[in-house]
């Protein structure tokens, strides 16, 4: 009985495993091979160079600046998304009149293609005809040259990305909040705890799994940001918003340095895995310490 159950499991999962092996595992191994070979131009077969491509990428100024831009972007966007997402989720969780309407409204950006969002914001941030600077002038301040200045372009990428991503944080936190046991709060109130204490002692600790999930999903998404950057700034001005994905894309498909492109993408992959691993360890360590 047990054995037939197991064998059935193999048959159920086999087709998907074969497809995943063919479309993920095989290409990744291929990419690993490419990253170890000299391959300039369209030819994919050159001489074996070991880790030379990796060394070249790590030493290149363009990669280093893309890496630091990406790290800055990831940190900024995660902090803003979490802060905004938490605030909105707490408000929605109060179930005031109109909450269902707002919940649908806030879900909209999640369904929209990042390309469309990038285009919308590019037009909104236009310096002369743009709606954002028009709004700013209504309140009496001139806006910056958004896409033409270093920090303006960085802010624009951040805003467009927060627009796309904060709804995810809201929805996940809200789902987790609505599953919290009501009687805990009742007991806390009876013990004389105020709203802030209840939040710190009950809400936050119980939301830890949801927060961890948000962090892992959003971190890996933010690390690979491409569409919005490509459309909104294309890495400019002067490389100020070049991120790892757009750097790899240009290096590979414009510069045709396939070997270096593959090497760079493995470095990025290892980085993301390391960050997620540390995150899991941190969260677990804290849980055990309590």
């Amino acid at each position, binding site marked *: 009985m047990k054995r037939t159950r197991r064998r059935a*499991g193999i048959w159920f999962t086999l087709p998907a495993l074969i497809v995943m092996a063919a479309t993920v595992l095989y290409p990744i191994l291929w990419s690993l091979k490419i990253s170890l070979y000299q391959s300039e131009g369209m030819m994919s077969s050159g001489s074996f160079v070991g880790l030379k491509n990796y060394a070249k990428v790590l030493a290149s100024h363009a990669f280093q600046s893309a890496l630091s831009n990406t790290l800055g972007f990831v940190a900024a966007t995660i902090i803003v998304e979490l802060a905004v997402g938490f605030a*909105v989720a707490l408000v929605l969780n*109060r179930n005031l009149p109109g909450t269902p309407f707002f919940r649908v409204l806030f879900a909209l950006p999640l369904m929209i293609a990042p*390309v469309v969002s990038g285009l919308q914001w590019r*037009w909104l941030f236009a310096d002369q005809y743009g709606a954002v600077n028009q709004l700013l002038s209504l309140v009496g301040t001139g806006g910056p040259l958004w896409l033409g200045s270093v920090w303006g372009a960085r802010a624009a990428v951040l805003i467009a990305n927060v*627009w796309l991503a904060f709804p995810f944080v809201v929805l996940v936190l809200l*789902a987790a909040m609505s599953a919290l046991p009501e009687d805990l709060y009742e007991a806390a109130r009876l013990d004389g705890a105020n709203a802030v204490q209840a939040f710190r002692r009950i809400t936050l600790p119980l939301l830890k799994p949801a927060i961890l*999930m948000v962090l892992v999903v959003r971190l890996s998404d933010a690390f690979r940001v491409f569409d919005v950057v490509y459309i909104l700034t294309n890495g400019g001005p002067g490389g100020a918003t070049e991120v790892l994905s757009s750097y790899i894309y240009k290096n590979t498909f414009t510069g045709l340095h396939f070997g270096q492109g593959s090497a760079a993408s493995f470095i990025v992959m290892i980085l993301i895995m390391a960050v997620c691993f540390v995150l899991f360890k941190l969260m677990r360590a804290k849980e055990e310490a309590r």
Partner: protein
Amino acid sequence: MKAFRPANVVSYIILLVMSLFVVFPFVWTFVTSIKTDVQMFSIPPQWIPHPATAEHYRAVLQEGKFQSFITNSLVVSIVSTAFSLAIGIPAAYGFAKHRYRFSGLFFAAIVAVRMFPPIVMGVPYFLMMRSLGLINTGLGLMIVYLPLELTLIIWIMEGFFRQVPHEIEEAAEIDGLGTFRKFIRIAVPLSVPSIGVASIFSFLAAWNEFMFALTLTRSESAQTMPVGIAGYVTTFQTFWGQMSATGILYIIPVILFTVFAQKGMIKGLTAGASKE
């Protein structure tokens, strides 16, 4: 009145500000799409164009590219989703109900693929499709969308199948149903709503995908909507009116869908959160 408590006022201010932030790009895109080129570049910008025009919509639809982009997007998204469902649903069921030696490891590996930066696959996919002669074809795109969709479908459906109580399955076994018939007759019918959610997300993953479409297609015969719409804004020329009109036509179905199917979609999005 209860509604005027300070906490409520602050709450509504937050909701209002965030609503404006969310809605503003949509509104501005729509306004742009019904402006003439002259109105579009007037300083200061006009909030309500007068008179409004449908010229950009007409231009976009007459040009014919829009139709081929949307057809390509529909075909690629629907066919790849159908295939992913056909192999993803049984796989999720197997992972949830019939564990074997390495099934946990395989499941974790599949879910972990979601964390990969897709650019990692950019180079090998390009070389792979070139050697298969599938550059600039719908089939090439469908193949590279399979892993994106399978990870989503398996993730969502595994969570659902795990919640199906054992009693139902045992009752089916007593009735003499074999493993595969149990899956077809009991598990699949029970999971229709979840399959709906998984299909929507799988469809959207392909419908919105940009990077692979950009690297693997070259002309409107195979290009999908995201690449097509990006083409209105090039280094040389910018057609904001046509871009906006195309954008509106492209996102209207998605917005309508979100409004009507919102409950299921929210459940699917947050599937992982309630699992812990």
